[in-house]
């Protein structure tokens, strides 16, 4: 143990030296051009994260419009057509603008640091894949100001509502989706190339931290799924403008074909948004439980099996489209099978905590909230997977509650956990711990007030995507809206905490920001210098920093 520690110390000293050296010679450009021209993984990671944060606020503002309209029955604030544009763009922006770019941002920052690589494998493509995003996002948002309004057919844009019956702006929406897809695919290629080629020579695949593993698998999902989405929107474009009838029965097509193609992308997409979250939580829990991650290899296999299963369950979104009974049975069995590897993950996290020596720093609290609330989302997911029961749940608020539990208290909470976990390393400053704790409880309580009653609303019969509702749904909608406003307000505090940390946070000097954290990222100086790992870390260092070999 003693020798290992001194090795680490030497290694850190070396890196500190190199960092100072590099900064001296070729520091970044100043001003805006630094960010436009940057090929540095840390800069690009920062860009991704800020972009995602801004999009989160935009998408969140749309959610506030939705909850305000639903605060009481009747049409108070917006027209039904605009309400539909809000639900559609809220979904699209949160999925493609907030959650996915945020995870790519985390990947950019962390993967090179965690595998001991000096940068991403394809730095120029990295720059390009980021800079497509703001333009795609702007184009998507610009549809709101076009005649006839923006897309109003739900984020799943089922044909023919999105083809024959859609506003003219739909073609801009299609182009925006294409651009977002390009960006994602390039990001994924970069991540795979980095992980497979740029790992420190002493790092075997099964030595990689779980965040790196989950992102490697996610990147393959992206490469497989995004082209399918591109295919779907291209077929839409053809149906709308070039007289084809892919989704029009009158011309020999089939509207249900659209749903098959969409969900063949859409279901893997769901896992694209949750697998990196599993990775984040698998990094944080061992740190604050002071105990190696339980069942590292089973976590890797579980992630891989979830990824494979994600490609063969898509039609559980379509139980009511008139599928033959054999199809429904198959998709039901395959779907509920997913709860086995997912359960393994939850059990492993809980066992990692078991007989640990736990402290509850802010990232740990977010990780624990993730495990609990994601599990609740998992339960409702299991219920939805039972085909005959799905008859009563499908397209109701029960579904809305389900996917917000897995995507907000799941994916988003893990991103917030990750930011609190790594932010001190990124900027060399500690956040205001007291404010962050207040923010945590504020958010975690309000988010449950927001989404938990939606289970009841769904079971009581409220369909999703309606701007006005029957009077018996009034109480729960009001409670849900109050929770929504409180949860929305919590993001002002989060913004303040983050900006305050970056500007005035208490400086942190220790390389290992959290005393019990393991991983190569904690061996570089704090704040992480622009260039790290010019020299690959040694096998000894890699093993010593492994969070799962039991060298704690």
């Amino acid at each position: 143990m003693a020798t290992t520690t001194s090795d680490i110390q030497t290694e850190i000293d070396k890196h500190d030296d190199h960092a100072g050296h590099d900064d001296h010679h070729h520091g970044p450009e100043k001003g805006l051009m630094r960010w436009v021209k940057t090929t540095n993984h840390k800069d690009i990671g920062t860009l991704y994260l800020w972009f995602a944060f801004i999009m989160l606020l935009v998408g969140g503002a749309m959610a506030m419009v939705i909850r305000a309209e639903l605060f009481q029955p009747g049409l108070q604030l917006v027209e039904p057509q605009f309400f539909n544009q809000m639900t559609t763009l809220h979904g699209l922006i949160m999925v493609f603008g907030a959650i996915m770019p945020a995870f790519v941002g985390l990947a950019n920052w962390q993967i090179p640091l965690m595998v001991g690589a000096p940068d991403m494998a394809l730095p120029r493509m990295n720059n390009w894949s980021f800079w497509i995003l703001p333009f795609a996002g702007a184009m998507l948002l610009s549809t709101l100001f076009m005649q006839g309004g923006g897309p109003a057919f739900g984020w799943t844009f089922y044909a023919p509502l999105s083809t024959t019956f859609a506003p003219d702006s739909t073609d801009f929406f299609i182009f925006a989706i294409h651009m977002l897809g390009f960006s994602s695919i390039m990001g994924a290629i970069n991540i795979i190339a980095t992980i497979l080629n740029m790992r420190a020579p002493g790092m075997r695949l099964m030595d990689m931290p779980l965040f790196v593993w989950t992102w490697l698998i996610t990147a393959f999902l992206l490469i497989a799924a995004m082209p399918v989405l591109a295919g779907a929107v291209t077929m839409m474009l053809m149906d709308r403008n070039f007289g084809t009838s892919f989704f029009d029965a009158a011309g020999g097509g089939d509207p249900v074909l659209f749903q098959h193609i969409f969900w063949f992308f859409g279901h893997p997409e769901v896992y694209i948004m949750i697998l990196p979250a599993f990775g984040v939580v698998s990094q944080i829990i061992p740190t604050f439980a002071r105990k190696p991650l339980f069942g590292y290899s089973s976590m890797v296999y579980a992630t891989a099996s979830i990824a494979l299963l994600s490609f063969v369950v898509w039609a559980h979104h379509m139980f009511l489209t008139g599928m033959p009974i054999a199809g429904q049975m198959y998709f039901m069995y395959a779907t509920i099978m997913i709860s086995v590897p997912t359960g393994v993950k939850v059990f492993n996290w809980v066992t990692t905590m078991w007989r640990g020596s736990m402290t509850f720093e802010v990232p740990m609290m977010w990780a624990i909230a993730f495990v609990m609330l994601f599990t609740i989302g998992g339960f409702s997911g299991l219920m939805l997977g039972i085909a005959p029961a799905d008859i009563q749940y499908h397209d109701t608020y029960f579904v809305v509650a389900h996917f917000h539990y897995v995507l907000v208290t799941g994916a988003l909470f893990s991103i917030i956990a990750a930011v609190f976990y790594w932010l001190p390393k990124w900027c060399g400053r500690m956040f205001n711990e007291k404010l962050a704790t207040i923010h945590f409880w504020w958010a975690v309580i309000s988010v449950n007030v927001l989404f938990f009653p939606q289970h009841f609303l769904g079971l009581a019969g409220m369909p999703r995507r309606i701007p006005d509702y029957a009077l018996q749904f009034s109480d729960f909608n009001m409670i849900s809206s109050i929770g929504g406003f409180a949860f929305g307000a919590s993001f002002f505090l989060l913004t303040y905490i983050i900006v305050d940390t970056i500007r005035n946070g208490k400086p942190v000097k220790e390389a290992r920001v959290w005393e019990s954290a393991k991983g190569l990222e904690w061996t570089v100086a704090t704040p992480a210098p622009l260039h790290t790992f010019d020299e690959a870390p040694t096998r000894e260092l890699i093993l010593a920093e492994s969070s799962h070999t039991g060298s704690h």
Partner: protein
Amino acid sequence: MLSTGYSIHSPLRYKLAPFLLMLILIVCLPSMAHADFGVNLPEGVTPISNKIYGLHMTIFWVCVAIGVVVFSVMIYSMIFHRKSKGAVAANFHESTAIELVWTLVPLAILIMIAVPATRVLIDLENTDEAEMTVKITGYQWKWQYEYLDEKISFFSNLAKGAREATRDAEKRGSIDHYLLNVDKRLVLPINKRIRFLMTSNDVIHSWWVRDLGVKQDANPGFINDSWATITKPGIYRGQCAELCGKDHGFMPIVVEAKTQEDYDVWIKEQKAIAAAAAAAGDREWTKDELMVKGQEVYSTSCAACHGVTGQGVPGAFPAMAGSKVVTGDVKEHIKTVMDGRAGTAMQAFKGQLDDAAMAAVITYERNAFGNNTGDLVQPATIKAAR
């Protein structure tokens, strides 16, 4: 060690209390499920809806049981395995045996759920041996019901007054079943195996009545089916469940289940009404008659898109006031209403409105909203144009 690191120790109470609160919430949930204030599925009035309810409760309890076990272990370790309590971390991190157990036990639980689920599914999908058939067609934004055996067909729209009540809280409180009421109910006999055929005229809709345990997508160009045997007379309400455009929230479903005798009486009435409507198309109408009838038809069939005052929705639905079609050639106007406009949301009303209704609504459009054309369209003109 290399660094002192960063670690905080605040009082436990303040850190863990809300987690306990959440646990209490989860434990309380089952009791709420039995309470009768709209937090759970109803058992419904068909064999299928009963079975779905049973299945739903089974899965629910399984989830609660698993949740209690997992969260208890978590909370126990959060309370007792804390550094501040002097807990020293163990170092175990692998056990193939345990991994196997928590792979196989959930698998066994899943199989236990899958067996009854499969049974219900098989029952649900068997639409054979139906004693009567109703064809349901979704339109933007109303339902058409066709009794295939009786040759009766009608449309069911959002009830009168509901559209105005969306902007008027007082009206909302006073009208019957705000947004869940229609102008004409689907009347069905009890204790008869009824087969439903679902299709759509435009976009995808989904016909959903919870108490019947029926929800099935209505796809344009295709026919899906489902079935129900209603065991209790009563009124059962539902809504369209698939986003179908602007007024998706405004196309309710109301089913009225009657005893066979009452149902037979109702069928007779419907046939008499149909005969009277056909006769009304054979006589000459006055302008006042046409305008009154026309306003009624306009508010149920046209106002959703073109607006109560004919203002339309810019960029999406054209205005009636001052419209070229409405103030121009009468023949063109009739053709548009009859056949719709291909590639737009304008439906063909040929099959939806009888001669008198269509003549009335066209007359109304040509003389309301400041379109004072003075034109009069008679049912006979429509008949000739068909």
